[in-house]
């Protein structure tokens, strides 16, 4: 033994043996290290990937809650459509020919199939929708023809029967993956539907329901080899709105292609009976993949809900606010006269009126919309007082309507002008403010709420669309009451009644409707054509409805009054008022 070792040590091949030894050791160490990295360090990661390989969740979508109007008419519901999907791993080799055959068989454009495949592809083992939204008979025919190569799955699809008329109220649904970054913390799945805009977005948590699904065990070709579990989907909750779908339709019919806003609200509790923003869009197009570019590229921005997202100068419709301030601050009585000679001179500047109204009291001034009267009143009140009352009436705050993306109005103040425009407040600013011009802007709903507050003697309602929902307590009235003298509010109601009832009133043409309407018109000057306003309520003794019409760049208030007439006449004839 000893001898052999000595011999070994003297072997001429000792060096070579060592070299080979080192090469092999290095090689094995490389392998062992890599294996250590893959199996020990990254083991969990690969286990996870392995699991994803063979466990396939088959989503069963929850049926979303339906939305009904105040009379139980359906505004939105899920209908069943059929989707055709394929498993990429399974059809990988024959993809081209399969798509071609499906295309010929179903008369569905091959390019669309390929586009859908690319768009919906997630991984090799998750079914990919290639054709969506087909009827049952075609789906069954396809299944018969292509067998295991395709999967037919019924899917709930959102449908809005009152397509254009209620789109701003309802919004629509989108796939959650678009907003997945924000939504994942709330437990959304990227393929789930999520409400976008309107009621669909605001009450998504109620409407949503819970998706269910089957958990299947599959082999490498995507064939089902075992069943791991099932979870039944839970239907979302139904919502009942304060909206009247027929009045919505009527509003849409009234506007035709004009741009503007129409709001019909219950005075007592702020229930929105109709809220229409024109132009409108068809939400169904966003769901079925129909044409949406017409809506997205229209310069009139149909997607904008003007009632809560646009702020306009209120023009003369602001005057009742000034009047209540004057009466409450005891600067005037209803019969305090001011003389109007058609214009008001302040320094070198002349502030015009519509015409020379001569002597005017409050009733006449509101009925005739006399600017000079309100110039005098504004100077008596002073800008601080005007701002204070505007703010008290909520013109610079959110109405907190149950819709997303609400904007608020803007009331200029002395300190604001100083700070942001680096200018002093001039008397001219006060005059501009008094007739709702200049820096001031209000949303239609914001001004409607303020006028409603004056009409009802101080009730600041929270406008809302939700009446009740399954398993959800009914709407809690969150209206506040402002401390306004009933006598004063009655005075203004009477004055606004004059606008309609008096022969010389600016909205006299509405009198023939016999609704006991009181109101105020407004023409808000802009750089371009003026916006026309009409805000009114009826019956004036005990207001039930408040109506607000804005005609964007409609020329003058007269056009807004014509529109109001058309609308009220229509719903009155249909007997839609209760």
């Amino acid at each position, binding site marked *: 033994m000893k001898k052999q070792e000595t011999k*070994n040590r003297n072997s001429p*091949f000792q060096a*070579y043996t060592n070299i*080979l*030894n080192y090469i092999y050791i290095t090689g*094995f160490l490389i*392998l062992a290290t*890599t294996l250590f990295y*893959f199996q020990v360090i990254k083991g969990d990661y690969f286990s996870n990937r392995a699991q994803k390989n063979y466990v396939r969740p088959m989503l069963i979508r929850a049926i979303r809650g339906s939305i009904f109007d105040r009379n139980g008419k359906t505004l939105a519901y899920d209908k069943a459509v059929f989707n055709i999907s394929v498993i990429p791993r399974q059809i990988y080799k024959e993809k081209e020919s399969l798509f071609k055959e499906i295309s010929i068989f179903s008369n569905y454009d091959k390019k669309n199939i390929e586009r859908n495949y690319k768009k919906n592809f997630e991984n090799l083992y998750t079914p990919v929708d290639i054709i969506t939204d087909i009827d049952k008979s075609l789906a069954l025919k396809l299944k018969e023809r292509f067998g295991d190569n395709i999967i037919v799955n019924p899917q709930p699809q959102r449908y809005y029967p009152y397509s254009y008329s209620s789109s701003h109220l309802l919004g629509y649904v989108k796939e959650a993956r678009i907003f997945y970054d924000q939504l994942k913390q709330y437990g959304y799945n990227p393929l789930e539907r999520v409400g976008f805009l309107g009621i669909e977005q605001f009450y998504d948590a109620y409407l949503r329901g819970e998706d269910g699904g089957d958990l299947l065990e599959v*082999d490498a070709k995507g064939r089902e080899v075992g069943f791991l579990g099932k979870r039944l989907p839970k239907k979302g909750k139904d919502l009942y709105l304060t909206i009247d779908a027929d009045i919505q339709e009527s509003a849409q019919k009234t506007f035709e292609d004009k741009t503007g806003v129409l709001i019909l609200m219950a005075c007592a509790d702020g229930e929105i009976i109709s809220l229409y923003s024109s132009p409108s869009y068809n939400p169904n197009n966003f769901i079925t993949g129909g044409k949406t570019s017409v809506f997205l590229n229209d310069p009139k921005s149909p997607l904008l809900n003007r009632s809560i997202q646009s702020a306009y100068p209120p023009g003369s419709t602001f005057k009742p606010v000034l009047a209540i301030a004057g009466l409450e601050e005891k600067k005037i009585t209803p019969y305090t006269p001011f003389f109007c000679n058609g214009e008001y001179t302040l320094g070198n500047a002349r502030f015009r009126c519509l015409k020379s109204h001569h002597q005017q009291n409050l009733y006449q001034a509101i009925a005739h919309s006399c600017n000079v009267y309100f110039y005098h009143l504004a100077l008596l009140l002073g800008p601080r007082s005007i701002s204070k009352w505007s703010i008290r009436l909520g013109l610079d705050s959110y109405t907190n309507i149950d819709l997303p993306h609400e904007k608020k109005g803007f009331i200029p103040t002395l300190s604001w002008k100083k700070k942001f425009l680096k200018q002093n407040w001039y008397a001219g600013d006060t005059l501009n403010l008094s007739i709702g011009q200049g820096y001031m802007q209000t949303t239609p709903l914001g001004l409607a709420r303020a006028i409603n507050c004056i009409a009802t003697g101080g009730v600041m309602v929270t406008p809302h669309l939700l009446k009740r929902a399954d398993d959800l307590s009914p709407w809690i009235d969150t209206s506040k009451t402002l401390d306004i003298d009933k006598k004063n509010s009655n005075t203004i109601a009477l004055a606004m009644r004059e606008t309609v009832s008096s022969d010389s009133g600016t909205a006299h043409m509405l009198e023939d409707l016999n609704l006991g309407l009181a109101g105020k018109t407004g023409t808000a000057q802009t750089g371009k054509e003026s916006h026309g306003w009409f805000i009114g309520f009826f019956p004036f003794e005990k207001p039930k409805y408040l109506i607000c019409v804005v005609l964007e760049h409609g020329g003058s208030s007269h056009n807004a009054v014509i529109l109001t007439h058309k609308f009220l006449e229509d719903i009155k004839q249909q007997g839609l008022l209760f």
Partner: protein
Amino acid sequence: MRILKTFQLKFSGFKTIAICLILLNSLSLASIFSSLHQAGKFTGEDILLKQMIWIAFSWFMLIIFSFINFRVYFNSAYMIYAINIILLVIVLFFGKKVMGAQRWISIFGFTFQPSELSKAAIIIILARYFSLNSKSFIKGFLIPFSLVVLNALVIIKQPDLGTALILFFVFFIMGFFSKVNKLYFILTLSLGLLTSPFIINSLKYYQKQRLMVFINPNADPLGAGYTIIQSKIAIGSGGVIGHGYLAGTQNQFNFLPERHTDFIFTIIAEEWGFLGVILLLMIYWFILKKIIQQLLNCRDLFAFYLIVGISVLYFLHVFINIGMTLGILPVVGLPLIFLSYGGTNLLINYILMGIFLNICQNQR
């Protein structure tokens, strides 16, 4: 009785290797069984049976070759080389096509892959040339190199890139240990690396795919990269202790292609985990260690070069095969010695082991 005595004497130093080989045989059969076992059913009786026959036959041939004096190969090196080339050419014209490659000759239902024979033939003929101890460029380098190139060209034509590459690797390592000027080898190697872009250009489509995939396996998850991704997932998911026998999901649910042949390692790694594969690497290491220890006993250059060639061949198969399943080397289609399904490879490796045994006895 005398025969038994000779046997005892013959195999006394062979115990470790024999135990290792038997362990590998068992693991091979178990893993092939597992790879053909799906959804609780076993579908490949004939494959398992064939492999058993091949194992038995290989052991028999190992013993036979251990009795043949290795010196015989010195004289018959040319003949073996020529037979090998002829068989390869026959394959090119009459061979059986399996998965796009024409590598097999079919005899009585058993297929034979002559490119495996090349590995042995090249080791023998190189051992002969280098053992002449010539320092001349022509005898010590040019002729052996040309023989390798010729053989490799016929193999690449099949196409079998892995085997062709192995031949070159064996040539370079054996050459480095010879008396010939090392510069020749270095220059040739550099030249080879420099021209490799052109060689890659002339490769078959699937070979190019496999090389591209090696660079980025995620580029084409359903194409050639699929194999590597699935193989990595299978190996990684094995974790430290593995899923247990017949419980690997990647294997059982059919996610791994070619898994009883070139990718058998993934089954083992998935089922037995890190501990299992380290044990496997140790078994290979014992075999290699035993073989190179024998170099110290060599008193004959021909024996020396044969042993170097055999050990390098074994090592390269283990390293390249496991390396490719891990994605650190390109997928070139080499089996894992003693484990992968495939008779010719097993047979040739056992014959080489038999030759090694014979050298051990002769050099003692």
